[in-house]
């Protein structure tokens, strides 16, 4: 082949000596990238008759799709629910620091807040692709204020709301705009919730049930009206009861509309969920399990007192409580640590553990054609992991955006 000037967009990079997660298995295959997307090398060989411009040796490591966190309240001192003048910088700081945890896309989460905060903060959070500057923003996760009083957890009581009066309009008035919103968590036992759920999902926004005292029947009805997610399973909901499993019963419900499935978030930080409970949930419905961090601003900062929305939070090791109480208040375990904990606690396969942080959240958001897999044509957001699933390097759109200092290449 005669030497040719290859532009960045057409440059073909072949990652060799690696195992890639594809088709639910770890395969001994090379990963080919071009123009920020995963390339089909067979098609390239036979149709374009081209080879790679560059080969990169991955030293036998695992290549997995970049991790996706659909519930994260802040980190590194940044609180997404704080009405700052420059929310964008906060998002950017978190996005940049998340790269070290293998996270390539996330949903900034806002806890229960008064309407003026939503009106100030939401317009400043834009859906955007990841880059060397940081992980991509998939859209905002609004957790509250339309939640149960009894199961509010760390959410401030004074700002809880219902949509009895105006249903969806109430929701719209509270939030201001739904333009960059990806997920809304609400309690389905609130009156008129089903019509609200229908309206929200018709706009392509995912509805999650959580912070709720609903029984299984109500939760099933919510799903039939369009809800597809459960916010941090087990936490902030009625406990499983054998005659009324509550929201937990959705994992094995036979009332799910055909062709749809319910996903459920799990905080696998070793604090929020007992390993036995993690195993029960995993075994009951493995394909629906989505690992989330529910991380708070103290993520990455260590022990001490921090804030979350309108609340003060005390952090000790991995445990975060509303200051002066024993009420759990988010987590400081990074997503890659959750993947490792999940793997050990459940004894599941490496593939399943990885898919819980990649494929499943992508499927929840309906973006599995671009994110969450290493299928041909999808975005080249991926992580290089060692056999213990420690992050060695992070790539977004085929570009190296973070690297463990000890890695050679």
């Amino acid at each position, binding site marked *: *082949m005669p030497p040719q000037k290859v532009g960045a967009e057409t440059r073909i990079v072949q990652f060799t000596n690696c195992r890639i997660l594809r088709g639910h298995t770890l395969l001994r295959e*090379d990963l080919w990238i071009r123009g920020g997307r995963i390339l089909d*090398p*067979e*098609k*390239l*060989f*036979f149709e*374009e*008759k*081209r*080879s790679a411009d560059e080969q990169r040796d991955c030293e036998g490591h695992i290549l997995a799709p970049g991790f996706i966190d659909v519930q994260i309240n802040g980190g590194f001192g940044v609180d997404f629910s704080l009405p700052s003048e420059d929310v964008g910088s906060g998002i950017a700081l978190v996005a940049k620091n998340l790269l070290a945890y293998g996270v390539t896309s996330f949903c900034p989460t806002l806890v229960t807040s008064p309407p003026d905060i939503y009106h100030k903060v939401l317009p400043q959070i834009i859906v955007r692709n990841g880059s060397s500057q940081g992980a991509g923003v998939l859209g905002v996760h609004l957790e509250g204020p339309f939640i149960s009083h009894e199961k509010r957890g760390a959410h401030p009581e004074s700002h809880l709301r219902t949509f009895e009066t105006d249903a969806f309009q109430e929701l719209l008035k509270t939030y201001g705009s739904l333009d960059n919103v990806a997920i809304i968590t609400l309690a389905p036992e609130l009156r008129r919730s089903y019509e609200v759920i229908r309206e929200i999902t018709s706009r392509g926004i995912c509805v999650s049930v959580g912070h709720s005292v609903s029984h299984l029947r109500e939760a099933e009805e919510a799903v039939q009206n369009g809800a597809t997610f459960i916010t941090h399973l087990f936490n902030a909901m009625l406990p499983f009861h054998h005659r009324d499993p509550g929201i937990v019963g959705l994992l094995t419900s036979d009332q799910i509309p055909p062709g749809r499935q319910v996903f459920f978030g799990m905080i696998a930080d070793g604090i929020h969920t007992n390993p036995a409970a993690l195993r029960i949930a995993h075994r009951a419905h493995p394909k629906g399990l989505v690992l989330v961090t529910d991380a708070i601003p103290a993520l990455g900062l260590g022990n001490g007192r921090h804030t979350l929305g309108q609340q003060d939070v005390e952090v000790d090791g991995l445990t975060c409580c509303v200051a002066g109480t024993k009420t759990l208040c988010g987590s400081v375990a990074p997503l890659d640590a959750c993947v490792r904990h999940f793997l050990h606690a459940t004894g599941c396969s490496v593939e399943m553990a990885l898919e819980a942080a990649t494929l499943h959240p992508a499927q929840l958001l309906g973006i599995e054609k671009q994110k969450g897999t290493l299928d041909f044509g999808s975005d080249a957001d991926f992580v290089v992991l060692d056999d213990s699933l420690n992050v060695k390097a992070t790539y977004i759109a085929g570009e190296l955006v973070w690297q463990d200092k000890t890695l050679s290449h």
Partner: protein
Amino acid sequence: MRLVILDNYDLASEWAAKYICNRIIQFKPGQDRYFTLGLPTGSTPLGCYKKLIEYHKNGDLSFKYVKTFNMDEYVGLPRNHPESYHSYMWNNFFKHIDIDPNNAHILDGNATDLQAECDAFEKKIEEAGGIDLFVGGIGPDGHIAFNEPGSSLVSRTRLKTLAMDTILANAKYFDGDLSKVPTMALTVGVGTVMDAREVMILITGAHKAFALYKAIEEGVNHMWTVSAFQQHPRTIFVCDEDATLELRVKTVKYFKGEH
């Protein structure tokens, strides 16, 4: 001919791979001097391909100046179908070595004008200076490539309807469903392979024993098209013990050098 008998499949595969490797290296291929190799598919050559890949990964063998011509391809099967011969060659060989994609030739079973595709293939072989070494296998019905019983022994690259034996043998690759197996293929002719300067036929397994017997101990016959190579000046048959089960003891002893 030469008949090389190895104890088992792995040794036969290794012997064949070493032979090909040495041929290429001794040829000293370069910028203006390509080594042309004819290649088969199927289960028999898999071990040989694995060995060749190993030699390449060890740094002992480069395919940079090698041109390859595959024997055949199904008609009507999408190129990226897992059972197409394009998929086979990509997964089992091409993706592991340093061959230039422009030099890897496989017949296109989805060409609009199939005969023109075959003619063009013959031309490409001619333009490459002919084949230095054509590696092939043998079907249970004694066919070489898809030159089914009854094929002309001087045939050229063309469209062929597959024999029932072949379709049955291939069913295992299509979920055991006969209706899914392609019924036609493009194939190099017996004459095309006979034109090669050297031919190496790989035959392993007891199920090929009868075909081998017919091919080398009986006469040249268009019902067992591999028998045509009795009239080629430089052919090697590489087998394992099982493939020799239908041969006369005298033949085997002669070629093992035991007398």
